[in-house]
Each structure stands twice: as structure tokens, then as C-alpha cells.
């Protein structure tokens, strides 16, 4: 399966499956969708999705998901990876719950393509929503099988058997018991049930829904946790790779002789891949600097100032994402009309761990340890590049040091595999920070244009929305508007040929940060014009009960009191939906009008994510989203001219620091009876809008472009 085929679909956003009929689902996603597992009969789209995945599927045999060892420990196998989002804990909770074993006996085996069931990748807040149910069903089935085996062993009727912490006992004679370990004896269990047992109801939960500390912390605070760059193989070499100075440059000539002169250096030149290898990484770096090159440089046609006009010029006709009523009728009803344009710059993923991989190729078999969000995708890519069958490629994913969408691209793993084959030795490719910035698939620069209108009573009567190049995720409004149309153009976050001067990709909640910033700014502009408090204006224009509930929960916690903006208080709010989760955020900012500097003092975020497997982990993700989101709101942007990237390290590319920290409070709506929704991304989507609205409330200055740097705040303040 080609990367494009699976990635394209999966950054689309859709809610969890349970409450949707097939027709609803197709309506939501526009058809041609893909579903990620096939446990039980609940899925009407199995055949269609299997075709899209060319036969790849989550297996039905529970043995693929878990193994009970003779010592009583349980291994849980998942193609998902751990990059900080905490599924190493929450998936173990789900397994422990359904199998009735204690959480500390569960060992997670993640992202190993030889051991784990196929998986599309870890992104889109999909793990808990789509793999979770498959895992729970597998564990419930395994539990039922073990009870059958115990009934034979104990010669007790099944109805009399209970389980606690991996021990099956006879309820009437508690000393009459047997452990799972004894029953399974570390082997695969070759007994299957005719009827799949149900998973537990939320009233039966003892592990799910309980705030649980991360299970990977001990390894991470002692330095024991292994990341891809920490793997050491005998005879391994460290690679440094020649990169063009700017994107689009063509190599004219190369002279590697001086690099070759360094003792122990091996120079590899294979088509576009020119690399120096050495047993010390710093020696390889020295050798790389000795390579002499000449490049043909393309002329720059666009830069960070002109990019927005360029994007508008090259944008194709868009596709209608959603519409209702009749825009012309809406215009006629309006007493005030608003036409605004919102911009956001390119943003880097910049995980603290750069892309890293180490590969060993022996006898046509490749083993690659990679920092990747898509191990099974990497497997196919590497098989194709090396020209070997994909079953000969094994990807092992150690802990991943942050991904945020950036590590769905596996270029470094492919480079390591190619070099390991050519050098006939294990090779580590660990990108430098400069390479990480240069090769990143940035969140695309994007434009949103909105025309909207309200009537005399402050009701929104029409909404005409077009998003260029961000993608449609989060573009659909959820307000009660009779006449509306939402259009997306530009091919989503990947763009179209000729649009972006370098690679773009999915960045945490792809598209939704752009869309939510634009929508929620526009809502506030209308509220202000209507002379209404922005919270009340939203309530007036909302019918969606879930959204009203999260807004009220946020307002309660924040202590929101009504005032027309700008009130001088520096209060803002923003709400949105991502990965099926509803989020409302309120913030207080302080703005230095002269300097343009914005300090966020306080953030309150309320979230309805349905059933929360690990409420503590969910809150940790919300806090992470809020803190990370300060960056794209206030400072993060890539400066460039043509293919030349000017921000190549953290000196000029500013990510959030300790001194930026607002007081953060999170509220999880109690919705343990509702289907599980996404958790790793939703809370980030409000950060642009909430800060833009709070700045306006503080000083009456509206910022239309992200990030809201001191320069932009200052210059906008001078104009008003």
C-alpha cells in the first residue's frame, strides 16, 4: 500500500463510529472512507475498507493482540507507537479491564511490525477510538476462552466462575482456583468462541476511567528508555548526509576526496544519496563539511510575505464541504455584513527528538529501528526502495520523542536502510536539528476568507466560508445558521504541485487550528458589532447541546462575566470540534501595547471526549495542547525565500518556554457512557482563536494573521 493512499484518508476527521448509521457516515466523509478494524459484525463498511487497504486489516484472532506468559505477565501487541501521547498506559488499561488482570502485569509491545497486528499509523487521534475497541473485544474474547478452559480444569460450571487479577476461581469455593498463566502456559490458545462475548459496561469498570499515572515514567526518568538513536549495534556506523542548500537546488558537481582522507570515513554515493559514514558521529560530521559541492539554485518566486497572494492565485476551484439554505436569501436578511481574511504561516513540528533510524540489512532482510508514527508504512517504503519483499522488512519502533504528525514521513528510515545495504554494516541516520527543520513537512501556510452576516437581533443569518490550503478538518461550523456554505480548496495539507516551495504535511489536528482560528475570530467580530458578550452571542447562535455544555463548563471554571468586547479585561474564548471531541477554551491575556508582547495569564479548557480511558492522561494531553498551542499562536513561523529556509534551529524558531506558562485548568465533562473520542489533538485547536479574541478584548486590536508576533501586534495597534 502506498503511503499517499493511507495517509490521505486518515487525517480526515470523523467522530467515533457507534452512533452513526452508514449513511450518516458516508455523508460526513463524502464517501470512499476507510475503517480501521473489523471486530464483530458491527461494521457495515468492512468490505469497502478492506479493499482500500488491499487486504490489510486488524486481525480477528485475539492471539494477535495479547499473549499470557508462564510467569503470569501479559504482553499486549499493538502497531500503535508511544510518542508521549500516553497510549502505552491507556491501551494497557483497556486490556487489563477486559481481561481482568492487574495493570502492572501488562507489558506493551508497540510498533514492531513482526510482532504486532498491522496498523495504519499513530495519528488523527485514532488509537483510542479505533484500535481501543478492537483490543477490548480481543481481550474480552480471550477472557471468555480462559474461563472455558478453567471450567474444564476446575470441573466447575462456567456460571460459577469469577476472575480477579488473572486468577479464575469458583465463586462457591474460592480456594478452588487456577491462574491464567497455568491455563495458557505461554502458548497461543487455539480455542475460539462461536459467539463473541460483549465488552464490559461502564458500570463494571475498575481500571478504565480511573486516573492512572504514566507507566513509562520510570524508564524515562532514569535514562533507560530507548529512543531510536539510543540503539547500539556491533560495528555500526553513523551517517551524515549531503543536503542541498535550498529546496529545489540541483547538484552540479561534488568532490568528496577531502572527506575520504579522514581516517575511517566511508563515502557512499548512490544517485541522489551522498553520505559519509564513520564510527563516531562527530567525525562523520567533520567529513561532511569537507565535501565540496556546486549547486544550481532555482530563482525564488515566493517568500513568507508573498506566499498568501501566491496561494490565492494558484488555488483551484474548491469543493463544497457542507452547505444549507440559500446564501442569497441570507444576505437579504442581514443588517450587518462582515468580510474578513485570515492568514497563517508555515509552522514546524520540531519534536525535540529529530528523525532518527538505525538499519541493518543482512541477506536480503532489513531490520530498522525508527522514530516513526507509521511503522507499517515505513516497512512498505523500505521494501520498495531496497527491492525486497515487504515480509523481509521488520520495523521496530522504540519510544518516539514527539511526532505531532511530522513522523508520518519516514525519509530518515529509508535513508538508513539504503545506506546499511550499501555499506553492508548497520547504519544510524540521526538528523541534525538543521536537517529536521529543512526536511520537515511543515503545517501549510493557509488563507481563510469568510463572509457572514447578522440580523438586528444578533442572529447569524448567513455564513460563506472558504479555506485555502489548510484542509477541511474543522472547517464546518456548528452554529445554528440558516444559510451557509463551506468550501475547501488547495488539496488539503499536502497542497498541490506549484503551491508550496517545500514539503507540507499534517500537523497536530491538521487544518483545524487554521479553521478554528478563523471561525472563532469571525464570531467574535460579529459579537462585538452586535454589542453582545462573546459568550452570550455564541449561546444565542448555538443549538448543539454538547457545545453549549462545554462552553458553560469552561465559563463556570473561568468565572466568565458578561461584557461587550473590547472590555479591557483581556478575556477571550474559542470553541471547536476535533476528532469527535468538543472543546471550549477561555483565556486571559495581558498585552503590552508598546512592545506588542502578549502574555497569556490563564487558560481554562473544558472538553467532552466521551468515555475517557485515563482521565489523568487526557488532562495531560489537554495541558500539552494548550502549552504547545501558545507557539503557533504567538511566535512560530517559518521564514523563507523560495526554497531557502531561514529558521533552522531554536534560536530563531521560538517554541513555548517555561516563562510563557499561563495558569492552566482543565475540565473533563463527565460522559463515561458516551462513545470514546479523540484526545491527543482537540485542545490545541482553540489556541489561535482564544488568544486573538483575548488580545482584542484587551486592547481593541484585531489580529488576522497567525502567529501574533510582537511586531504584528505593535503594527496593528498603531493602525487602530
Amino acid at each position, binding site marked *: 500500500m502506498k503511503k499517499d493512499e493511507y495517509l490521505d484518508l486518515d487525517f480526515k476527521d470523523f467522530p467515533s463510529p457507534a452512533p452513526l448509521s452508514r449513511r450518516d457516515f458516508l455523508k460526513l466523509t463524502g464517501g470512499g472512507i476507510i475503517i480501521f478494524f473489523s471486530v464483530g459484525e458491527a461494521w457495515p463498511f468492512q468490505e469497502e475498507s478492506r479493499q482500500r487497504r488491499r487486504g490489510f486489516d486488524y486481525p480477528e484472532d485475539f492471539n494477535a493482540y495479547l499473549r499470557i506468559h508462564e510467569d503470569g505477565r501479559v504482553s499486549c501487541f499493538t502497531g500503535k507507537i508511544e510518542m508521549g501521547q500516553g497510549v502505552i498506559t491507556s491501551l494497557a488499561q483497556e486490556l487489563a479491564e477486559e481481561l481482568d488482570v492487574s495493570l502492572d502485569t501488562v507489558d506493551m509491545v508497540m510498533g514492531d511490525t513482526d510482532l504486532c497486528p498491522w496498523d495504519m499509523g499513530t495519528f488523527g487521534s485514532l488509537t483510542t477510538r479505533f484500535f481501543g475497541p478492537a483490543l477490548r473485544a480481543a481481550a474480552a474474547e480471550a477472557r471468555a476462552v480462559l474461563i472455558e478452559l478453567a471450567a474444564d480444569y476446575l470441573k466447575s460450571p462456567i456460571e460459577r466462575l469469577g476472575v480477579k487479577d488473572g486468577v479464575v476461581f469458583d465463586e462457591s469455593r474460592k480456594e478452588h482456583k487456577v491462574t491464567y498463566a497455568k491455563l495458557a502456559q505461554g502458548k497461543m490458545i487455539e480455542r475460539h468462541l462461536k459467539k463473541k462475548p460483549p465488552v464490559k459496561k461502564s458500570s463494571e469498570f475498575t481500571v478504565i476511567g480511573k486516573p492512572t499515572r504514566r507507566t513509562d*515514567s520510570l524508564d524515562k526518568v532514569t535514562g533507560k528508555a530507548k529512543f531510536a538513536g539510543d540503539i547500539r549495534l556491533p560495528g555500526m556506523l553513523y551517517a551524515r548526509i549531503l543536503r542541498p542548500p535550498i529546496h529545489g537546488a540541483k547538484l552540479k558537481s561534488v568532490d568528496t576526496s577531502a572527506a575520504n582522507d579522514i581516517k575511517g570515513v566511508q563515502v557512499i554515493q548512490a544517485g541522489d544519496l551522498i553520505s559519509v559514514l564513520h564510527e563516531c558521529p562527530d567525525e562523520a560530521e567533520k567529513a561532511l563539511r569537507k565535501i565540496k559541492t556546486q549547486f544550481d539554485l532555482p530563482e525564488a518566486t515566493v517568500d513568507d510575505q508573498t506566499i498568501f497572494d501566491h496561494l490565492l492565485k494558484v488555488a483551484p476551484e474548491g469543493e463544497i464541504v457542507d452547505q444549507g439554505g440559500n446564501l442569497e436569501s441570507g444576505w437579504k436578511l442581514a443588517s450587518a455584513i462582515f468580510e474578513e481574511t485570515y492568514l497563517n504561516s508555515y509552522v514546524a513540528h520540531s519534536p525535540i527528538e529529530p528523525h532518527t533510524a538505525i538499519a541493518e540489512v543482512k541477506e536480503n532482510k532489513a531490520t530498522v529501528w525508527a522514530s516513526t508514527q507509521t511503522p507499517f508504512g515505513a516497512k512498505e517504503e523500505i521494501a520498495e526502495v531496497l527491492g525486497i519483499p515487504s515480509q523481509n522488512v521488520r520495523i521496530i519502533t522504540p519510544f518516539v520523542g514527539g511526532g505531532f504528525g511530522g513522523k508520518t514521513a519516514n525519509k530518515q528510515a529509508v535513508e538508513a536502510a539504503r545506506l546499511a545495504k550499501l555499506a553492508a554494516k548497520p547504519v544510524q541516520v540521526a538528523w541534525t536539528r538543521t536537517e529536521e527543520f529543512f526536511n520537515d513537512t511543515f503545517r501549510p501556510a493557509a488563507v481563510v476568507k469568510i463572509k457572514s452576516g447578522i440580523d438586528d437581533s444578533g442572529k447569524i443569518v448567513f455564513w460563506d466560508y472558504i479555506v485555502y490550503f489548510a484542509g477541511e478538518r474543522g472547517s464546518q461550523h456548528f452554529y445554528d445558521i440558516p444559510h451557509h456554505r463551506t468550501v475547501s480548496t488547495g488539496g488539503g495539507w499536502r497542497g498541490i504541485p506549484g503551491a508550496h516551495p517545500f514539503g507540507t504535511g499534517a500537523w497536530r489536528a491538521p487544518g483545524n487550528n487554521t479553521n478554528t482560528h478563523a471561525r472563532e475570530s469571525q464570531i467574535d467580530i460579529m459579537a462585538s458589532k452586535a454589542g453582545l458578550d462573546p459568550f452570550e452571542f455564541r449561546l444565542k447562535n448555538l443549538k448543539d447541546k454538547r457545545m453549549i455544555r462545554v462552553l458553560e463548563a469552561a465559563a463556570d471554571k473561568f468565572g466568565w462575566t458578561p461584557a461587550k468586547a473590547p472590555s479591557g479585561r483581556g478575556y477571550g474564548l474559542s470553541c471547536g470540534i476535533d476528532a469527535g471531541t468538543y472543546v471550549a477554551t477561555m483565556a486571559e491575556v495581558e498585552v503590552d501595547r508598546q512592545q506588542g508582547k502578549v502574555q497569556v495569564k490563564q487558560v481554562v479548557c473544558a472538553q467532552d471526549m466521551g468515555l475517557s480511558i485515563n482521565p489523568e492522561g487526557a488532562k495531560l494531553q489537554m495541558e500539552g495542547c494548550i502549552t504547545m498551542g501558545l507557539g503557533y499562536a504567538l511566535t512560530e513561523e517559518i521564514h523563507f525565500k523560495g526554497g531557502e529556509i531561514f529558521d533552522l534551529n531554536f534560536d530563531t524558531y521560538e517554541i513555548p518556554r517555561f516563562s510563557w506558562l499561563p495558569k492552566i485548568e482543565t475540565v473533563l465533562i463527565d460522559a463515561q457512557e458516551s462513545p470514546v473520542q479523540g484526545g491527543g489533538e482537540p485542545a490545541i485547536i482553540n489556541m489561535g482563536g482564544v488568544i486573538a479574541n483575548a488580545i482584542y478584548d484587551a486592547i481593541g486590536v484585531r489580529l488576522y494573521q497567525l502567529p501574533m508576533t510582537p511586531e504584528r501586534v505593535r503594527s496593528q495597534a498603531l493602525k487602530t
Partner: protein
Amino acid sequence: MLNGKPVRLTGDRERMLLWALRSDLSLTGAKYGCGEGYCGACTVLVNKEAVRSCQFPLKDVEGKEVLTIEGLAKNGDLHLLQKAFIEHDALQCGFCTPGMILNAYSLLLKNPQPSRQEIIQGMEENLCRCGAHTRIVQAIQAAAKEMKRRR
């Protein structure tokens, strides 16, 4: 001295400590994050002072005591900071964590009872992309409090 044991290294004295630790000594707790001293993922202690090991040449550690994250727990007992990081979930991906803990350790050596503001100032140059900052500050505060209680 490295984590309390004498270590002899031969070779280029201008080499950066990070590479010697990670490749020669296979102590991979100190991480490469930016290579230019901006992020703090490579932080280790030299004579109880937090340094950026990617910018610290070997010649400057000669005869000195180096402490890496692998040497912080004593006889299998975690340091109070390590315990506090676990108890507060003060990490996500964990890549910046060794540098965070060692920087905080050096901070507490100098100032055992830092105010919240002093913690923030002291940690300012250590970057975390996951946004664990709030918990990290809480963990350092809790560790400092516990250290005082035990004294």
C-alpha cells in the same frame, strides 16, 4: 569521574562530551536535540554545574566529576526529583526529561528552596515540545519541599 566511577578516554580533546557519552560510553540518557546548546536535552552535570554536553569539549571535563541521568539514582533508589517527575506525570515523550531533571537538580543544589518564579527562570533554557511544563514546575516544587522535610 563519571557517575562516581573513574573513566579514562583517549583521543581528540576537542570532542564534545555528548558524543563521547553516547557513542564511546553507550550512556544514551543525554540526548541530542539541537546540537547548538539551545534546547538542553543534552544537559549533564560537570562538578555539580549543569552544562550543555553538545557544546562542552572533553578537555574541560578532565579531572572533574560528570553526572549523567544514569548516575542520579543511588543504589537503586530514585532521586526525589525522579520520584516527583513520576508522581506528577511531569513528562510525555520523555526525550527532554533527562536534561530537565539534571537541570532542576543543579538548580536545587544552588537554591534548595526556589520560588516558582526562580524555578521558571532556572528552567527557561530547557525546551519541551510536548508541553509538560506545568507538571515539571510542580514536580520540582514538590521535590524541593520533600528535600527540605528530610533535612
